[in-house]
């Protein structure tokens, strides 16, 4: 029983991590009222960049940097198009995903079915040495811890720092923020780049730890689930964590039940996380007042300085 529970926690944590990383990045992006629908594409780019560099050099930290850079490159493209050239954010985000899919498949064609070094588990003193379950429950790879730390830092930044206040001001009333002298476009650029970095890292976690392989389209909609998570959390960091665990749980469940050999077709079980996303979105969105209360007021609206 304990073993099962430990297994559950470990699996859910692992499944939740890529969602959490990408959603934390997108949260910051949406806090400055930019909607980047290209998360899936950026995660794919991060996944292949990380995997390829890990395979070629054997250096994991280099691989993570490459993944972050890949995500940031795509998000920079997004920023130039939507922030400087004022292109439609929805369409540009979709372009990012279409491009990321194609590009990662092309680059990744030579990396299918081969191995790369995977992320090591971190040994925590005392905790990892606990009898029975310490070895499994308290030894994760560094990115799982990093995701939690980054989330906490993001929450602190948004709530408790001057920078976070500026970010929220730009998201809720960019004209006023501009009049107060804040560089709306520049700060939005930075936020979008942060989102790209986080998505890239999330992708690298997928290809270097979660399913330590490269396969075409391996993100399988997780980028979109991360986007849904931000809405689910109503743009609040703590709820992001709950949401990520919830989805991690659904993903684990669909795999676990398939493993049990129950007479439910595996294809239908695989659809479970996507159905869960729809259900959760519906439950959350029906409360229009709460959405309006928490949603950055300028979300998706372009800003043009008029002076």
């Amino acid at each position, binding site marked *: 029983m304990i073993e099962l529970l430990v297994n559950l926690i470990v699996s859910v944590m692992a499944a939740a991590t890529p969602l959490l990383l990408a959603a934390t990045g997108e949260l910051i992006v949406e806090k400055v009222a930019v909607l980047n629908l290209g998360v899936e594409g950026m995660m794919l780019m991060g996944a292949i960049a990380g995997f390829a560099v890990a395979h070629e050099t054997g250096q994991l930290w280099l691989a993570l940097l490459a993944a972050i850079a890949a995500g940031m490159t795509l998000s920079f493209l997004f920023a130039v198009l939507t922030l400087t050239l004022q292109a439609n954010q929805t369409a540009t985000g979709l372009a990012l995903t279409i491009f990321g899919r194609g590009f990662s498949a092309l680059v990744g064609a030579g990396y299918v079915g081969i191995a790369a070094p995977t992320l090591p588990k971190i040994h925590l003193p005392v905790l990892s040495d606990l009898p029975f379950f310490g070895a499994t429950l308290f030894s994760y790879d560094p990115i799982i811890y990093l995701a939690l730390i980054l989330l906490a830092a993001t929450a602190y930044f948004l709530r408790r720092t001057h920078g976070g206040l500026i970010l929220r001001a730009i998201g809720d009333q960019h004209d006023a923020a501009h009049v107060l002298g804040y560089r709306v476009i520049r700060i939005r650029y930075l936020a979008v780049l942060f989102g790209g970095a986080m998505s890239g890292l999330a992708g690298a976690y997928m290809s270097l730890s979660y399913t330590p392989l490269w396969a075409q389209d391996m993100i399988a909609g997780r980028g979109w689930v991360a986007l849904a998570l931000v*809405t689910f959390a109503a743009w609040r960091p703590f709820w992001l964590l709950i949401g990520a665990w919830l989805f991690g749980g659904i993903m684990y469940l669909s795999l676990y039940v398939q493993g049990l050999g129950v007479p439910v077709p595996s294809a239908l079980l695989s659809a479970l996380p996507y159905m869960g996303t729809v259900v959760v979105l519906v439950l959350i969105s029906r409360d229009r007042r709460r959405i309006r209360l928490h949603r950055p007021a300028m979300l998706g609206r372009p800003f043009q300085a008029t002076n």
Partner: protein
Amino acid sequence: MLRLQPRQSPSAFWSWASPILALVLTAVIAGGIFAFMGRPPVLTVYTFLISPLFAPNGIASLAVKAAPLIMMGVGLSLAYRANVWNIGTEGQFTVGAIFAGWLALSLPDAPMWVIFPAEMVFGILGGVLYALIVAWLRTRFNANEILTSLMLAYIGQYLLIYLVTGPLRDPMGFGFPQTALFSDAADGPRLIENTNLHFGILAAPIVAAGAWLMLGHSVLGFQLRVLGQAPRAAKFAGFSENRLVWLAMAISGGLAGLAGMFEVTGTQGQLSTNISPGYGFTAIIVGFLGRLNPAGVVPAGLLLALTYLGGDAAQINLGLSNSITGIFQGILLFCLLGADVLISNRLLWRRRSVAGGRA
């Protein structure tokens, strides 16, 4: 430095010149990427964009690929004009194909004049019903249609996998994930005997023409445009937003379902796990490239169809992965969105000090 200066009114010239500029830019950028990969850029771009047209049956293959793209692109144009972001046409395409395929398998002996129109009805019905889930979730529960329609696209794909590996699998098919072949009657009429030029190739331009008339010359078309451009005005005019959302989803979903029906009956003759090479997502680019105008969607659909043929040609003749199709499509959409800035802005060369820089 380069500066953008907003125009007094959008430029009609650039609205149509921008796709052409985008295409040229895309060819140049793609050539650059090929050169970077150590491939001869001009030859590769030529193989990708020009050579498929001169291949045997090149034009016929182009028409076969363009038909579903045009049909879906037309539907998306109407929906996007109304600010209804249906990006799950891939799912509506799949469910339309499932409905039509199921009918074809259930009635193997029906004559063509019965089965073929019935398949069309079922294809449309499948797409409409699947799309209306999204409309219902948006109007009733305020759920974002971008995310729900996309999630339903994934679910539709798994539904298809379930059906062709389970209940609908061909018992004589050696366990392959596909259904039995449809009857010749169910495959529908051919425009030219012994080719794969199916009826959908005729239907696509008809659909485009009908939508063009509807959008420009009917009250409904007017309402859709107003809802997209000035939602508040639409409200004051008493147009029901919910009704328009339902209609936009139904039209785009129904056309996607019809496209799916033509694809599985006309070109594939059975259901299998891969009935679409991402037509639903490519149709989004078709819509934008066609300026969300059914008349523009036709050439845009032909161009994007060419990128599929080009991917195959590059794979066969140059040994490249056919995923360059996706790259090309992505770059094309990037360039288009970038070039579109010229519609509402003038590009000026100005010294930085004059305006005190970008504020």
